């Protein structure tokens, strides 16, 4: 058998089902790959013993005829998900040594479906970033490089470790979280599939919070079919999360391969700003052509408040984060830097424990909520959010799904874009509006840029209509014939 780590989940499950592969062997192959590819820095913590133990159990369950949806499939878990007894860092120094005595609901669902944990994937600190360069545990390298250029590129972020691990076949899939594009942008940068489902589809319980009203977990995989399968395993109503939607989880895998005849695909005219690279525009046009060919109708839609989405996001998300991150105070877990008074201890601990970008956002968030500024900033941003969300509602009166680029550029170099925070923030210009509106957004690779880097397109659906998104995504995936690892 060729390298089993290159299989899709669907292929691996078929072999496991036929008894031609065991989870232990599949897991060992991945662990070996992880060891060889440590230079990518995709994982913060590898859990080989746990992985093998889980794989062993999985093989037993399979033999006993109790196979779950992901029985025996080894996964990387973004280190924002609390995992019982396994260090959970959120990519931050401030959670140094923290071992949660509990498990997140999403990972619990995955383990209940038979998945195996390989380790905890690297990420931007507290999921704040679009390059994975803000991690206290060091930057992650994108497995892709520009044609004829050996310089390292970023994998995107914040789920950069997850994306790199999946792209480099160091996991069959990974969990990600997305607040403003943290699943979709790294998926695009690393040439994989990632979906941020509708807000409320996956439980936030046990996921280290960044911005509660935006955070959503989702799968990162190499194919649309795998994403559909893994989302099915992750999702579901959770009484422990008050914002979790009491909606039944459809069998998303049934959408994979379904016809899109008559589907109306919207193209938001505001998503074509001046200076958007020819590569991106080319990919986008190609994507539309494939959908049209498969029987879809292309319609232009307007999302007039798009240009305000970034600024809105950079008020709302830091405001929530400034409050969500107040609990990291050196009292009950994580880092403590001693001080002579309670305040001194707090201030030293948080100064040392948080990195530059996190501090920047906490300070902005504190400011926009403070007395005298709340209305001008936070309340204003909440109103813009209403307008942005209603733009989408209107667009979905004429379109069933929207197609846009995922990011304005392909992966950039490690260390680039660091000088000006706003330039970095612009990476998420196409993903943030979807997050503010709570809609499902999927990124899939559709081709390569002129210098040989993956380009991603984003499909945006109506609330709780991931099925339409999966249908269209699969059509595009089939047409694109994107060469994954083979291309490198």
């Amino acid at each position: 058998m060729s390298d089993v780590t290159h299989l899709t989940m669907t292929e691996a499950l078929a072999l496991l089902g036929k008894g031609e592969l065991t989870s232990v062997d599949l897991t060992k192959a991945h662990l070996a790959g992880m060891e060889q590819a440590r230079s990518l820095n995709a994982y913060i913590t590898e859990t080989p013993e746990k992985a093998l133990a889980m794989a062993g159990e999985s093989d037993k369950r399979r033999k006993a005829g109790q196979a779950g949806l992901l029985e025996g499939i080894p996964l990387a878990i973004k280190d924002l998900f609390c995992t019982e007894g396994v260090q959970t860092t959120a990519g931050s120094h401030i959670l140094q040594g923290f071992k949660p005595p509990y498990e997140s609901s999403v990972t619990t669902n995955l383990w209940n479906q038979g998945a195996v944990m390989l380790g905890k994937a690297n990420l931007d600190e507290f999921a704040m970033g679009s390059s994975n360069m803000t991690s206290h545990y060091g930057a992650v390298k994108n497995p892709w490089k520009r044609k004829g250029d050996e310089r390292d590129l970023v994998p995107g972020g914040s789920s950069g470790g997850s994306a790199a691990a999946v792209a480099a076949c160091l996991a069959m899939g990974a969990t990600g979280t997305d607040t403003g594009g943290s699943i979709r942008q790294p998926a695009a940068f690393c040439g994989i599939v990632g979906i941020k489902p509708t807000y409320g589809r996956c439980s936030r319980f046990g996921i280290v919070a960044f911005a509660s009203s935006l955070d959503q977990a989702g799968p990162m995989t190499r194919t649309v079919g795998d994403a559909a399968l893994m989302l099915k395993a992750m999702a579901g109503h959770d009484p422990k999360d008050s914002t979790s939607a009491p909606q039944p989880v459809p069998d998303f895998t049934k959408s994979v391969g379904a016809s899109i005849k008559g589907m109306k695909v919207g193209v938001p005219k505001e998503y074509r700003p001046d200076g958007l690279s020819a590569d991106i525009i080319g990919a986008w046009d190609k994507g539309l052509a494939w959908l049209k060919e498969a029987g879809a109708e292309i319609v232009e839609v307007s999302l007039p408040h798009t240009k305000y989405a970034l600024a809105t996001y950079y008020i709302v998300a830091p405001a929530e984060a400034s409050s969500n991150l107040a609990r990291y105070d050196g009292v009950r877990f994580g880092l403590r830097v001693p001080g002579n008074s309670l305040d001194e201890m707090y201030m030293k601990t948080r100064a040392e424990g948080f990195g530059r970008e996190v501090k920047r956002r906490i300070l902005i968030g504190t400011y926009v909520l403070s007395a005298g500024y709340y209305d001008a900033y936070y309340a204003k941003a909440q109103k813009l959010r209403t307008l942005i969300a209603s733009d989408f509602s209107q667009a979905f009166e004429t379109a069933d799904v929207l197609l846009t680029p995922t990011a304005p550029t392909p992966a950039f170099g490690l260390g680039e874009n660091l000088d000006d925070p706003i330039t970095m923030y612009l990476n998420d210009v196409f993903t943030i509006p979807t997050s503010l509106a709570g809609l499902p957004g999927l990124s899939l690779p559709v081709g390569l840029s002129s210098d040989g880097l993956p380009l991603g397109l984003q499909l945006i659906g109506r609330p709780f209509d991931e099925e339409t998104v999966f249908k269209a995504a699969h059509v595009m995936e089939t047409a694109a014939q994107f060469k994954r690892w083979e291309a490198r």
Partner: protein
Amino acid sequence: MSLDKATVQKIAYLARIEVKDEELEPLARELSGILHWVEQLSEVNTEGVAPMTSVAGELALPMRQDKVSDGGYPEKVLLNGPETTNGFFLVPKVVE
């Protein structure tokens, strides 16, 4: 809004993040830059627009039954504590 050093100092204290004197100036510039940028929102007329806290706001807040179903594991609560004794977390003495 341009932030001065004193405002940055005040905000940093509210957020309990120590900022060294020499960091105040560059931080003030950086934060001011971001604030200027987000102030573009002021050009949008939002009169009569309701603020949105959550996209899930249409749902009813779920409620749970009044049953004791959690707690009772002080050892787990204290397990990760940087400094604990006799079942308590310890912090530098607070003088009231």
